[in-house]
C-alpha cells in the first residue's frame, strides 16, 4: 500500500458525547474507512446517524474518543497549532447550509481572500486577484467581492464556499450535505460544478448525503451508516443490484422515484432508529431487521469483505439479494 494510495484512513474510530449525568451519546461507533487519493467516497444514512460527527472528527473539530485517524500516514489527533493549520489547508470542508457559513458582517471578498492571506501570507492586492480568479472558476464575476452574504442566494453562496475550499488545492474535500439545503435545480448545478472541478484537480472527496440517488450518481464508493456505525460499504454504481445489508435495502426501498410506477406497493421499514444514547451491544439494526435473531442481539457484526470494494456488517451474509 503506497503512501499515495490511502489518503485518509480511519481505524476503529468512536465518538461519544457526554450528556453530563444523563448518559452518553454514541455518535460514532467503531468506524473504519479508507479514502484513496482522487477517490470520491459517499457516506449515506439517516439523520442523526453520525455523518456530520464523522466529518468533524476527520477535520479535528472534535477530538476522537477512541480510535485513530491517519492522513497521509500521519495520525491527526496530535495536531496542534501550526500543524493543525497546515492540515486544515489540505482538508477543506463544505457545509450543508451555506447561509451559516458566512459571517453575516463580512464581505465576500474578505471571506474569499482569507486562505491566501492566512496560509500563504499573500499581499492584499494579490489575494484579491486570486480571489477574482477563484470566483471565475465557479462562474461568478468579481462584483460579488463587494457583496454581503445576505445579498446572495443559497446557490451562489455555496459556489463561493466551493471556490474558497478548492482555492489552495486541498487533498481532501469534505462535503457535508453540501446540496441538501438547495433546490433540485441548484443542487444539480453545484454537483456538476464539483464534478468538473474534481476532474481538473486530483483531490479526494468525502461526500456526506442522505440522498441515495445523488450518492450513486456521484461516488466511487458508498458507505452506509446506521446509528453511528458503518453497516455496508459498496461500489457507487448499481446500488440496488449490489446492496446486501437489510438496512441498505430498506433505504433503497424507501426512495420514491419520480418515474417509478405509482401503483407500486410501498415496502416500508417499521419503527424508527433507536436513540443513540447508550447504544446496547449487538447489531444496532436488529430491532427493525426482518431477519434479526438472538445472535444479532448479542454480537456486533464486523465489516467483512464479501466482494471487490464491498464490505458488509451483517451476520446474515447469505441472505438473498
Amino acid at each position, binding site marked *: 500500500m503506497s503512501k499515495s494510495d490511502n489518503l485518509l484512513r480511519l481505524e476503529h474510530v468512536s465518538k461519544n458525547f457526554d*450528556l453530563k449525568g*444523563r*448518559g452518553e451519546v454514541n455518535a460514532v461507533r467503531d468506524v473504519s474507512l479508507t479514502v484513496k487519493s482522487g477517490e470520491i467516497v459517499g457516506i449515506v444514512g439517516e439523520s442523526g446517524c453520525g455523518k456530520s460527527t464523522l466529518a468533524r472528527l476527520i477535520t479535528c473539530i472534535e477530538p476522537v474518543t477512541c480510535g485513530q485517524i491517519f492522513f497521509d500516514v500521519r495520525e491527526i489527533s496530535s495536531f496542534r497549532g501550526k500543524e493543525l493549520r497546515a492540515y486544515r489547508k489540505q482538508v477543506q470542508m463544505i457545509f450543508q447550509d451555506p447561509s451559516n457559513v458566512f459571517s453575516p458582517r463580512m464581505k465576500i471578498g474578505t471571506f474569499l481572500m482569507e486562505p491566501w492571506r492566512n496560509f500563504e501570507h499573500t499581499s492584499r492586492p494579490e489575494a484579491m486577484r486570486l480571489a477574482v480568479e477563484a470566483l471565475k472558476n465557479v462562474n461568478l464575476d468579481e462584483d460579488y467581492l463587494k457583496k454581503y452574504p445576505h445579498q446572495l442566494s443559497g446557490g451562489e453562496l455555496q459556489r463561493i464556499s466551493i471556490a474558497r475550499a478548492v482555492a489552495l488545492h486541498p487533498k481532501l474535500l469534505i462535503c457535508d450535505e453540501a446540496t441538501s439545503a438547495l433546490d433540485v435545480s441548484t443542487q444539480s448545478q453545484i454537483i456538476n460544478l464539483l464534478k468538473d472541478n474534481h476532474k481538473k484537480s486530483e483531490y479526494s472527496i468525502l461526500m456526506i448525503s442522505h440522498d441515495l440517488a445523488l450518492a450513486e450518481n456521484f461516488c466511487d464508493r458508498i458507505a452506509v451508516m446506521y446509528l453511528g456505525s458503518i453497516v455496508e460499504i459498496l461500489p457507487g454504481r448499481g446500488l440496488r443490484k449490489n446492496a446486501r445489508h437489510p438496512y441498505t435495502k430498506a433505504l433503497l426501498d424507501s426512495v420514491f422515484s419520480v418515474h417509478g410506477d405509482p401503483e407500486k406497493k410501498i415496502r416500508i421499514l417499521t419503527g424508527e432508529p433507536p*436513540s443513540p*444514547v447508550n447504544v446496547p451491544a449487538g447489531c444496532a439494526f436488529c430491532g427493525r431487521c426482518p431477519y434479526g435473531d438472538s445472535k444479532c442481539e448479542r454480537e456486533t457484526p464486523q465489516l467483512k469483505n464479501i466482494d471487490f470494494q464491498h464490505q458488509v456488517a451483517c451476520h446474515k451474509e447469505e441472505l438473498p439479494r
Partner: protein
Amino acid sequence: MIQYIAKRLVQLIAVLFGVTFLTFMITQAAPSDAAQMQYISMGTIPSEELLEQTREEMGLNDPVLVQYGRWLWNVLHGDLGTSTKFSESVLTQMSRKLPMTIELAAVSGVIMVLIAFPLGILSAVKKNKWIDYLIRFLSFFGISMPNFWLGLLLMYVFAVRLGWFHVVSTNDIAGIVLPVATLTIPMVCTYVRQIRAAVLEELNSNYVVGARSRGISERRIIFGHVLPNALLPIVTLIGLSVGHLLGGAAIIETLFSWQGIGNMVVEAIRVRDYPLIQGYVIWMAVIYVMVNLLVDIMYRLLDPQIRLRKKVD
C-alpha cells in the same frame, strides 16, 4: 425531585460560602479594622499600643482564614456580631427590620402583578392598536424616571398637598401607599413590556398557528395556551424581583423612612457598621439561594421539557 432539591441545596450552600468569604475579604480590605471602628464609634482616638492590644484581644492578628473560620462558626451559631452603631446584636437589628422589608416587598409584588399582568396582556393582544401604543409609551416614562424623584413628587402631592397618605412609614394603608407606588410604578412599566414581549413571543410561535388550524377559539388559545406558557419566564422573573425587593429597596426605604433592611444597610454604610453590612450580605446570599432554588423548582414544575428530560433519553 427531592433528590434534585438536595443536590441544588448542596450547590447553593457552596455559593453561600463563596459569598460570605467574599464579603469577609472585602471587609478586610476596608481602611479601618474592627478595633479602630470600636474606638471610632466611641468617638475617641486610641493610642497605637491600645489599638494593638485591642486587636490582639479581638483576634485581629490571627491569619485571615482563621478569622474567617471563627466568624463563620459564630454565624452558624446565629451570632452575626454586634452592630457598632447600635451596640446591639446584628441579628436583633435585622430581625426587627426584616418584617418591614418583607411587608413592603409582598405588597409591592402583589400590586405589581395585579397591574402589570392585565396591562401587559392587553398590550400584547391589542398589538399595534392605540391602547398598545399608549401603554408602551407610558411605560417608557415610568422607566426613565429617577424613582427617588418620583417618590418625592408623589410625597409632595399626595401627602403634603392633599394629605391623603403618610410621608413616613406606618403599617396602615395611608403609610404604605406611597412607598409601594414609588416602587411599583417603574416595576410595572418594565413588567408590562416584559409580559407583552413574552405573550407576543408565544403568540407568534407555531403552536398558536397549529391551534388555530385545529379550529380552537382565540380566547382559548390566549388563556389556555399562550398565557400559561408565557408564565414560565414571567413567574421566574417575578420570583427574582421579589428576591430583589426582599433585599430592600434602599433608596425608597430611605426616602420614606421605612424601617426596613434597605434603609438599615444604607445607614450602616454611612457609619461603616461592618458587622451590620456583613449581616446584610449574608441575608442577600440567603435570598439568592432561596430564590434560585425556587426558580429552579418552578422551572422543573412548569416546563415538562426540563422535568422529563431524563426519561426521554
